[in-house]
């Protein structure tokens, strides 16, 4: 690759290339070394930013070129081509390889490629402070010996290690650097293959390319090199080479394997991680939290605590909102006395009760989001999804089927949508059938609200009991599905679980606020719409609920509702819930609000334990909540 005159340093200037993977602190080192003596432009003919700069050490002038951050030097991306072309064609006097000490094995991969190239390399082991926090001990001397190159430990963020780096650069510029790199190589059984490839390409590769490096790149299927050789080789030579390479369709894997073996050998003696007994409390907890048995017990305890916590926060706020709205209803009733009767009824018996329930539910939804926000922020939420996998395996669902189930904890709709990624239609069908069983945030809100109406402070116990029932329902479904539906496997998944950390309250509050705002915006308009529709149907044709179209329709379905201990009014609410769970609540407010004269919350919903027998009371009180917890979620994703 050609480099413009502007970017090529003066002939006698010692030129250094700064290479490494992204996020290893390259920019910090570049800025610290060059200060304000930088030039920012583009790589010639490319849209990739190029940063060059100069600096002096003990009166000697140096030029520094910041190469694009890349994970490897295969010609897969523009950045990779720029980096390797610069090192091969421009031959800098020194390459500084930036490596993240806290992710040492991961970021050593590019070094395994750099040491194969002609320019000498020194390694800057940045983020030593982070590695120390992780209790990872890195023996720099041992690492230096294993690599055969100079290693400079650094904590760039703390401004530590720059003097040592400058000393190493000065040493290199005086030719005093001891440079005998240990290079990665393929396993013994592939030695002949590599030698054969080297012989075939040695005369044809570009002058700047080391032949051992080029042979490895060819085996990797490097597109740039393959193209060059295809152009330069005779047809029969190329055909022979292609036939050899064709025997190794996964040659790239062989080469990558050799580099990882090299990394393993290099770090075996130089790096030590904390012993298991000395693991920090968080790691020990994580072992338990992801354990097949303890993980489930911990999850159950955390979910129960979360439900109770959200009920404790949501219930008093909801009751406060209901009292406020009751007062408002009274004021509006008086203020609209002179207006047409239908208008006053629409506002006082339709709109206000509907909005009251929507706002009261908002209190529960926010409480649930608060709990979800905390669990996500501390890093536990992903574990909750992870440990459900054992259950998924028991019912014959694997791999991608796990994702929609995991997403359903937030919203069943996204879970059902997510089922589209599953290749097997049988598995897709089973997932769609199972997703609604998982209680989403809205279900928690609705069931919590309804339960709190009837059970006051005992609502959390009722909701927890419903959760246990949900688990039992899942177990029953698993039994039936295993018995009647045979499913195939679809491969496994690997999850990178986020690390635990202390909750960031600012983040959590923003999380809850944004979701609350979204809820008010979307659910608010939907609830008003459903409320008014229900009210219109309950008002027409004679202005009386009992003789309305809604009542006629509801009574048709009453025999079905009777099986669940519900009268026709509750059945109507359940049907409204097909649109969304909170629409069911709003309908409940309208239907019962019109049927009962009183506007207080308990009066609107009818009964108390003292008024009727306990059996009838429990049947009516629990049925709406359980029905909402178990039946279909918002129906609109099903046709998708």
């Amino acid at each position: 690759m050609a480099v413009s005159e502007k970017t090529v340093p003066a002939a006698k200037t010692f030129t250094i290339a700064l290479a490494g993977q992204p996020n290893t602190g390259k920019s910090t080192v570049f800025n610290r070394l060059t200060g304000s003596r930088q030039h920012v432009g583009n790589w010639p003919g490319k849209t990739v930013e190029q940063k060059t700069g100069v600096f002096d050490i003990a009166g000697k002038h140096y030029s520094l070129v910041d190469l694009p951050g890349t994970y490897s030097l295969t010609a897969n991306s523009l950045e990779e081509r720029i980096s390797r072309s610069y090192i091969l064609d421009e031959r800098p006097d020194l390459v500084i390889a930036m490596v993240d000490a806290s992710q040492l094995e991961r970021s050593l991969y590019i070094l395994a490629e750099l040491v194969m190239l002609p320019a000498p390399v020194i390694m800057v082991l940045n983020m030593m402070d982070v590695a120390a926090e992780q209790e990872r001990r890195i023996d720099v001397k041992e690492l230096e010996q294993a690599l055969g190159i100079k290693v400079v430990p650094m904590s760039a963020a703390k401004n530590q290690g720059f003097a040592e780096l400058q000393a190493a650069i000065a040493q290199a510029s005086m030719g005093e650097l001891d440079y005998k790199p240990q290079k990665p190589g393929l396993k013994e059984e592939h030695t002949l293959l590599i030698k054969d490839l080297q012989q075939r390409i040695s005369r044809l590769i570009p002058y700047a390319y080391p032949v051992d490096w080029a042979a490895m790149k060819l085996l990797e299927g490097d597109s740039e090199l393959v193209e060059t050789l295809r152009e330069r080789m005779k047809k029969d030579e190329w055909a022979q080479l292609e036939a050899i390479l064709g025997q190794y369709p996964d040659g790239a894997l062989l080469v990558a394997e050799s580099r990882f073996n090299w990394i393993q050998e290099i770090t075996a003696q130089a790096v030590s991680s904390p012993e298991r007994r000395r693991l920090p409390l968080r790691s020990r907890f994580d072992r338990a939290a992801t354990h097949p048995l303890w993980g489930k017990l911990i999850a159950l305890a955390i979910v129960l605590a979360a439900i109770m916590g959200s009920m404790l926060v949501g219930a008093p706020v909801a009751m406060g909102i209901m009292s406020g709205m009751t007062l408002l209803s009274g004021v509006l009733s008086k203020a609209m006395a002179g207006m047409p009767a239908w208008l006053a009824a629409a506002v006082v018996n339709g709109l206000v009760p509907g909005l009251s329930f929507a706002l009261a539910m908002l209190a529960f939804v926010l409480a649930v989001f608060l709990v979800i926000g905390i669990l996500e922020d501390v890093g536990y939420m992903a574990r909750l999804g992870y440990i459900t996998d054992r259950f998924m395996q028991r019912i014959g669902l694997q791999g991608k089927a796990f994702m929609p189930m995991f997403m359903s904890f937030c919203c069943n709709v996204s879970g059902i949508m997510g089922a589209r990624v599953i290749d097997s239609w049988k598995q897709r069908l089973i997932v769609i059938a199972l997703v609604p069983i998982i209680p989403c945030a809205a279900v928690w809100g609705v069931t919590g609200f309804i339960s709190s109406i009837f059970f006051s402070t005992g609502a959390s116990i009722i909701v927890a009991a419903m959760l246990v029932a949900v688990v039992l329902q899942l177990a029953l479904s698993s039994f039936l599905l295993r018995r009647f539906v045979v499913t195939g496997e679809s491969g496994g998944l690997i999850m990178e679980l986020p690390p635990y950390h202390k909750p960031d309250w600012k983040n959590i509050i923003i999380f809850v606020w944004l979701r609350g705002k979204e809820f008010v915006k979307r659910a608010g308009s939907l609830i008003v719409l459903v409320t008014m529709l229900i009210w219109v149907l309950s008002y027409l044709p004679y202005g009386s609920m009992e003789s309305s179209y809604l009542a006629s329709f509801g009574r048709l379905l009453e025999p079905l509702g009777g099986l669940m201990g519900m009268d026709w009014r509750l059945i109507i609410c359940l049907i409204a819930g097909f649109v969304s769970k909170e629409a069911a609540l709003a309908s409940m407010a309208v239907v019962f609000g019109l049927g009962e004269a009183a506007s207080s919350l308990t009066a609107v919903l009818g009964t108390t334990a003292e008024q009727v027998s306990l059996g009838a009371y429990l049947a009516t009180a629990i049925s709406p909540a359980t029905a909402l917890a178990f039946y279909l979620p918002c129906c609109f994703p099903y046709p998708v």
Partner: protein
Amino acid sequence: MLNALLKQLENGGVQSVSLLASRLGVSEPMLAGMLDNLERMGYIEKLVPGCDNGRCSNCYMKAGCNNNQPFIWKITAKGLNCTLLHERFPAC
């Protein structure tokens, strides 16, 4: 090493990075590097949990679905093919 990782994925189930690293006898940063590479080479792919941006755009709950989602990888057809090849030709 990389083949063993692909084999683990082929076997099914969901595994955490720490569990898999311990099964393969490598450190977590090493496993992370292996995953990076396999993904770049097309043997595994990263899945993005969360809402479908198009279809979920009107859902008021969507904001809660894309927060702090974990990284998830799955084996691709190329990866499956390689593990099959490896059984027949260990040097694939």
